[in-house]
């Protein structure tokens, strides 16, 4: 029996073999992990977001909220219909808009606009929002998500490309989270997003976030 402190020739070879396999595994892990994480890293510098057209401004009458659809700017050949996305466009007046995500701020179901009662309602868990997107009642903790918009050459464009979810960095910058106790004050964020320059300033923040 070999002394505990000595290392046999075969023992050394076995250990070297294990070490060699470890090195190869580590080297192979780099591309494997890189492949697995590719869906995150691609979005590092807001690569998924871009400005997409919703339609000419004349399609959106003042004071009304209309459904619009756009094609997601990032797509793959097998996406089919899933790249088509809907959103609610509210033209407040002139070139002042609010563009709401279709996804409820609670768990993402598609909200519907009821012009008669002036509410957005969600079919899943009963979230309701006022016409300016602020929370009216139900389980959502905040108002509807809003897309940054701009009007250029008579065309309404929004910056889109990511599914809005309660935790996404863009969602916390845009859209309105009513302050505590102010639920009935119809808090509006129009002032927050009134000018394109302010919108772009906020966008600058999203870039540093990721």
């Amino acid at each position, binding site marked *: 029996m070999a002394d505990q402190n000595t290392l046999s020739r075969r023992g050394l070879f076995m250990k070297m073999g294990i070490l060699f396999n470890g090195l190869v595994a580590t080297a192979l892990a780099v591309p494997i992990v890189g492949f697995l994480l590719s*869906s995150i890293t691609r979005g590092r510098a807001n690569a998924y977001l871009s400005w997409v057209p919703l339609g000419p401004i004349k399609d959106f009458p003042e004071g009304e909220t209309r459904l619009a659809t756009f094609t997601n700017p990032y797509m793959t050949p097998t996406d089919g219909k899933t790249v088509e996305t809907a959103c609610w466009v509210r033209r407040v007046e002139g070139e002042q808009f609010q563009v709401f995500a279709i996804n409820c701020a609670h768990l993402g179901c598609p909200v519907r606009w009821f012009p008669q009662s002036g509410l957005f309602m969600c079919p899943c868990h009963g979230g309701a929002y006022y016409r300016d997107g602020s929370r009216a009642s139900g389980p959502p903790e905040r108002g509807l998500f809003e897309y940054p918009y701009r009007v250029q050459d008579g065309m309404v464009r929004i910056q889109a490309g990511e599914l809005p979810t309660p935790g996404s960095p863009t969602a916390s910058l845009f859209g309105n989270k009513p302050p505590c106790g102010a639920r009935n004050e119809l808090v509006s964020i129009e002032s927050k997003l009134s000018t394109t320059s302010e919108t772009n300033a906020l966008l600058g923040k999203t870039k540093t976030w990721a």
Partner: protein
Amino acid sequence: MGVIGQIGQWFDHRLQLAAPIRDTVEHPVPRNTASWFYVFGSAALTVFLLQLVTGILLALIYVPSASEAWSSLQALNHDVTLGWFIRAMHGWGSNFMVALVLIHMVQVFLFGAYKFPRELTWIVGVFLLLMTLGMAFSGQVLRFDQDAYWGLGIGASIASRVPIAGPIIVKLMLGGPIIAGATLTRFFALHVFVIPGMLIGFVCLHLLMVLKLGINEWPMPGRLVKRATYENEYHQLTRKDGAPFVPYAVWKDLFFAAFILLAVAACAMYLGPFGPTGRPDPTIIQTVPKPDYFFLWLYGLLSYLPPSMETPALLIGPVVVIAFLVLLPFLSGEGEKSWRRRPIAVLTVLLIAIILGTLTHLAGYTPWSPHMNAWSGDPVPDNFLHGSTALQRQGALVFQAKQCRNCHSLGEGGGQRGPALDSVAVRLNQDQLIRQVIQGGGNMPAYGKNLSPAETTALVAFLETLHPAGQTPARDAALDDAQEKSTSAR
């Protein structure tokens, strides 16, 4: 020796499996475990095998592409001979498997089978349950329809609430920034390769431990499990009062497994396949997404949790539940096994069953959701308008046009989200009605900006008529008192 015997020997000389198989088949089990209570595990395994077979058959036709999946499911349902039946078997098999795994788990819990020395068998079983649920959810995604699409959105919204890592987890889960082709393919990989592979491995481990440690004996009240003596006692029991597993106990497993397969086939035949519902086109927003049966309780729970509690409950709840299940055999690894002497265990199972059952039942008719298809032309029933004034009738029109019945019922129809209004005038007086309509509150939106003063006046005038005949409406007692004083002072 015949030719067959010789061929058998030729194989066994090389495989050397005959002896271990004979040992397994003939291993003695306590006589009283040959019971109809001990058949759920083997039935779950049988349904799992059925799922493997039907799953492979479906994969012959199914196309895991966001643009083709829905059409390939339609082809399975309508074009491919008996495609509908294989889909139905797989769908119903999934429901049966979740149900059997849960029943098996309850039986194991109530019979104290998770106690020493079978702790690891239980823990592996907990992971098997999680994998079964993972299969159920990912399977629902592969049925790529509107429910699958919006279900993924719900999953992403929940995942996004994880602090800091949320957005990263969402992109990993969806395979990109939105629910699209890459989302379906990764759920396909999970459902077809990753989770089944793990399930097969864990099932083998689970079975191996059942064989090595022996099936749990029928629990006798007062016969306590002690680490020092249990294994000896168990061996004595199997020696004194044991019987070979085959055929003594196995026939009940065989009968029940066949019965379950027949039940799955009967459900598939008479009730047909699940969906697919509408095409997964996110621009079609006239949809009411709902999860499959075994996730309905979660759907209900998410409607009832207060908003501020939801994120902590969603993120911490599962961790606590899984940790509790994994730690259970260490928290009570010894002692009483019989459910007759474990009232808290029995009550816990009953309480959980009642909670899950109630939430599932509620999710069946979603009283928390507004009636999305109640439209403004839905008139107020005639019997609420007999003998009403012009103003009250105007109010009834406002009531109709502002879609109050999306959330409130009146007479037979209307939503159940808000209280029924048939006798609202008994509960609220004029001032309270005005305040409630204008300011909302108590989960009702404020309508102040959406109603003119004239509309509010008319609406409240109508609401004040809503009280049962012979019952006086609510009034402001303080106001009455003041009026009385002013008249008596005069």
